[in-house]
């Protein structure tokens, strides 16, 4: 049931839907996915892409300081997140819009981060999701600690650390995987291998045959999955979750995908990668593939598309309304969020800034 990486021959990513939408691979992994779930996956992927566009537009209009597009990674994110319960904790990096939407985090809550009004996003922890985290791979350790806590609390919840291919070079990700293995922590290391860490390709990031291979070194199962195949992503995460809930510890999953856009709105990918490469991946588009699969298996209904479009339009509007010219919070709030109670020095500095602001009128 679990694809423990033992040899290069086993490295082909798990795939349940071919790029043309044809069902392939192990049919048991496709079985019993309720039609309702299939429709939810499709709809969320469409909404993710539409909102991603809206975020980029807002950045271009000067409403956001920055935005990291997740275009091309919708299946990897949505497929993973729908395999989880709402009380399983997510530990995102910063590109996981698809997972945030599955969790019910509003685009406006995400936008607060990128507009530059609030670090970390707004209200993420109410949805069992850690705040957006910029330092690469550091959140993997938080996922392990939270997984250890889940066991101490007697829960059967799991945690998911979202990291990228570049993060696997970071010491913290190594320390996290090792600690999780030693602790049998119910933690899933979900690596979206989107091939590029800003401008550095995976081939310059490591010499391992695959990211999933690294699992062997930690003594945990490693799985590779086609990250543009939402159904396959959901299936492998489900298997890892089942193992973790049953007390069998962590799993490393490598979702092989592609970052279709720039690293962020500040990046120009034409400086380091070819259009031809991007065109190849465009043909593997996760949303088109999923729709073809639904059509081929007789589960497509035109209303799905209508629903997805309406929801996208509504959420784009909501996002624009929330973000466009949104007022800044008071800078004085900063002083209240350093300690549970501000220290005398902070009170004094808060007062100083308040006077300065008052004088400016």
């Amino acid at each position, binding site marked *: 049931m679990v694809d423990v990486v033992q040899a290069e021959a086993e490295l082909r990513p798990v795939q349940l839907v071919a790029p043309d939408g044809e069902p392939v691979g192990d049919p048991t992994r496709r079985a019993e996915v309720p039609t309702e779930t299939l429709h939810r996956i499709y709809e969320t992927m469409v909404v993710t892409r539409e909102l991603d566009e809206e975020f980029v537009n807002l950045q271009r209009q000067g409403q956001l300081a920055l935005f990291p597009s997740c275009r091309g990674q919708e299946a990897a994110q949505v497929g993973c997140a729908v395999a989880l319960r709402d009380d399983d*904790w997510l*530990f995102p990096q910063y590109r996981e819009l698809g997972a945030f939407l599955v969790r019910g985090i509003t685009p406006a809550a995400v936008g607060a981060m990128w507009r530059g009004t*609030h*670090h*970390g996003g*707004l*209200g*993420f*922890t*109410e949805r069992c999701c*850690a*705040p957006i*985290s910029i*330092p690469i791979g*550091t959140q*993997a*350790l*938080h*996922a*392990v*600690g*939270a*997984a*250890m*806590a*889940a066991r*101490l*609390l007697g829960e059967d919840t799991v*945690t998911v650390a979202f990291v990228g291919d570049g993060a696997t070079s970071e*010491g*913290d990700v190594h*320390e*996290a995987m*090792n*600690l999780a293995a*030693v602790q049998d922590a119910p933690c899933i290391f979900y690596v979206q291998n989107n091939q590029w860490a800003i401008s550095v390709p995976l081939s310059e990031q490591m010499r391992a045959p695959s990211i999933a291979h690294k699992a062997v070194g930690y003594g945990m199962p490693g799985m590779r999955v086609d990250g543009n195949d939402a159904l396959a992503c959901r299936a492998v995460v489900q298997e890892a979750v089942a193992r973790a809930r049953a007390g069998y510890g962590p799993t490393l999953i490598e979702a092989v995908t592609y970052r279709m856009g720039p690293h962020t709105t500040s990046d120009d990918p034409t400086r380091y990668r070819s259009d031809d490469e991007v065109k190849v991946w465009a043909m593997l588009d996760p949303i088109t593939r999923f729709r073809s699969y639904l059509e081929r298996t007789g589960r497509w209904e035109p209303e799905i598309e209508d629903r997805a479009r309406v929801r996208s339009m509504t959420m784009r509007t909501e996002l624009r309304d929330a973000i466009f010219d949104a007022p800044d919070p008071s800078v004085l*709030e*900063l002083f*209240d*969020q*350093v*300690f*549970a109670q501000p*220290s*005398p*020095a902070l009170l004094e500095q808060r007062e100083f800034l308040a006077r300065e602001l008052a004088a400016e009128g």
Partner: protein
Amino acid sequence: MPAMTMVEAINAGLRDAMTDDERVLVFGEDVGRQGGVFRVTDGLQRDFGTKRCFDTPLAESAIVGAAVGLALRGMRPVPELQFDGFTYPAFDQMFSHLAKYRNRTQGAVSMPVTIRVPSFGGIGAAEHHSESIETYLVHTAGLKVVVPSTPADAYSLLRESIESDDPVVFLEPKRRYWIRADVKPGARTEPIGRAVVRRAGADVTVVTYGGLVGTALEAADAAAEDHGWDLEVIDLRSLVPLDFATVAGSVAKTGHCIVMHEAPRTLGMGAEIAARVHEELFYDLEAPVLRCTGFDTPYPPARLEKAWLPGVDRLLDTVERSFSYDHA
């Protein structure tokens, strides 16, 4: 009242905290089976089990990073970083996450984590085992920094730290580990953020903390006996929050202030305290605030540390220098 070493007092503090609150977890390198390289966690694993007190892989960033995740889910982690010089790999987790989590969640998430660090020099240790890391910590918004100097304070301030909803770095002066003093079982001294006047005096205020409190008191006795100088010795006990009111009250009285620490001089606590004293007590001063500190070099090898560390003689010289301004 039983006499206890600081090691025994900290052990008692951990033990009582674990007894009172099952969310308190002790972990780190060698803290479980062995009971810690200084035996501070002796017997905790035996008495509280491997779920509450456990050894981790040898990975300092992991120790603090896991503490962040544990605290996010409601635990009260009390990790140990084995030596001051081994805290640097954990700085990213301490500075980028532990210190900022409250801010990054708009106040929604607290990080009640107490990181214990055997700290400072003076015990003839190997390289990387005698560092003063407090300036890095004090300069990082969101961390409390506590430095006890007596067994009673070590017990009490550790309990306060563990109960605090803020992250605390608890710097234990190794050279005071084996000092024996009376500790009233279970007794609290004062909350975090209160300095204490260890010796009242009229002539000069000596502000210090941790391992040098004993040195300052020794110097005060010598000064009284040999020169008739009356030193007031303030033990800061916590560097963040800083009890500046106690310092100011003393300096207003003496007009002379010396700050003493092992840490290199540049941008150490002495720089901050001197700046604030000059800003707020300018007209009370008879002399500029002086510093009696370590030097801007790497910490020296064991055989050289006595010459390098601020001791009784350097402090007395500094006092004399302070007085030299009086009738200039």
